[in-house]
């Protein structure tokens, strides 16, 4: 399970947002760290086929995104930065709608994620309207939804922003456990430093470029800094980061 990007470039009008970005991600927990406007969401939009790069290529699990979009989407789950749930529908209706878009029947869909729903403590909330859920529960629903088609690659774009400490902890631990249990490739975009562990693969991005990539602890050692915060300050000019 891997994601490979080769010399990706993307412009918004004349503004360069992603600058010849080459990246290889393997199974496990990969953290994409960068300030607002660094290009994280643009990279996500390109990986999900919502945006088309001006140049460069994306391969996911060996499939080329421009040639094999369907095979890639079958094996990819995404949690976007902005909630994409339909607040007027119930949790169950949201889940079965998403499953239907992947050609999965309602029964099969709920079968696929019955364990996940239990682990995320959503089983009793299935018939509740999404509108009645708090931010933490909505995020959990989005994670459960992203796993409905049993993806091999999971992309999460700032999935814990705006959540309280307990919800953040639960979600980060749960996604971390998915990597170990299922061997999937997770790309976790964040600007929250406390979500990064020493043994996580870390990619620091700024102004559309990769500033560093490697094991978090190794990168700190290499750049002779005590923690990821210092590493981030050393490699980027931005001060927009939360510890």
């Amino acid at each position: 399970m891997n994601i490979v990007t080769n010399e990706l470039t993307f412009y918004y009008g004349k503004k360069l947002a992603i600058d010849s970005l080459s990246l290889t991600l393997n199974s496990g927990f990969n953290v994409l760290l960068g300030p607002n406007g660094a290009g994280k969401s643009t990279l996500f939009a390109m990986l999900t086929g919502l945006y088309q790069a001006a140049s460069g290529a994306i391969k996911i699990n060996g499939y080329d995104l421009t040639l094999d979009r369907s095979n890639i989407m079958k094996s990819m789950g995404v949690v976007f930065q902005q909630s994409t749930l339909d607040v007027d529908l119930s949790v169950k209706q949201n889940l079965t709608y998403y499953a239907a878009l992947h050609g999965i029947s309602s029964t099969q869909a709920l079968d696929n994620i019955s364990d996940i729903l239990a682990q995320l403590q959503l089983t009793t909330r299935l018939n509740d309207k999404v509108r009645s859920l708090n931010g933490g529960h909505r995020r959990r629903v989005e994670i459960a939804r992203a796993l409905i088609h049993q993806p091999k690659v999971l992309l999460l774009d700032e999935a814990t922003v705006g959540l309280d400490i307990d919800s953040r902890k639960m979600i980060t631990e749960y996604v971390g456990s998915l990597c170990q249990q299922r061997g999937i490739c997770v790309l976790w975009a964040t600007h929250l430093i406390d979500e990064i562990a020493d043994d996580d693969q870390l990619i620091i991005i700024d102004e559309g470029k990769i500033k560093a990539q490697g094991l978090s602890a190794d990168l700190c050692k290499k750049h002779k800094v005590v923690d990821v915060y210092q590493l981030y300050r050393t490699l980027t000019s931005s001060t927009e980061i939360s510890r």
Partner: protein
Amino acid sequence: MNNRYLSCFNGIVKRELLRFFQQRSRLLSALIRPLLWLIVFAAGFRAALGVSIMEPYGTYITYQQYITPGLCCMIILFNGMQSSLSMVYDREMGSMKVLLMSPLPRPFLLCCKLVASALLSLLQVVIFLLFAQLVDVDIPLMGYVSAIPAIFLIAFFLGALGLMLSNLIKQLENFAGVMNFVIFPMFFLSSALYPLWKMQEASLWLYWLCQFNPFTACVELLRFALYTQVNIMALTTVLIATGIASFFALMSFKPLHGGK
């Protein structure tokens, strides 16, 4: 259609129906608007606007009878534009991303949306026609059956037009522009409220605008279908217009290109 496609189709249609029935005010306003035209407007204007014998009617008809197909098309037009509004809303709320992340082909997904929207139109028109019976709008029983494919085709066309527009509308706030620049001109520059020969007497250039308005073809297609007849010219026009609108609607859902 294999199971994956069928599940997807069912899912999209079910979602659109669920959303529609949750918005009861939408159903109510979809019916109140044409009923006001049929009961109030038509009552006031029936004396002023005499309609002579014309196809497909075999005899003199009341003004209510004349404007019924136009009002049915009005319902479909509003529903098509409402669907475009819902697409803009989905785009702003992010639900559109979920749709576009499906592994199934995007043209198929958009067709499912259009079919779902067409089914909603069909439902609203049938309810309206049942109410129209109460004000003595006389439609032959077989007319209801023969009107179904016509309503569906018109709804598909106007839905595709709405889908195309939804990509041009960048914000929900701009939707008022659609009312002023699309819905009203399409409706008033058609044979929905007056026969075109009356328009020809009033203004020749307005008459030609009405002739070239595909909404006129929609109204005439339905008018004939309600009397179990086929207006070949109108059918051809609507089919061509549907093809063009569907093509541009599908083209407008390509990924954003990041070139300079």
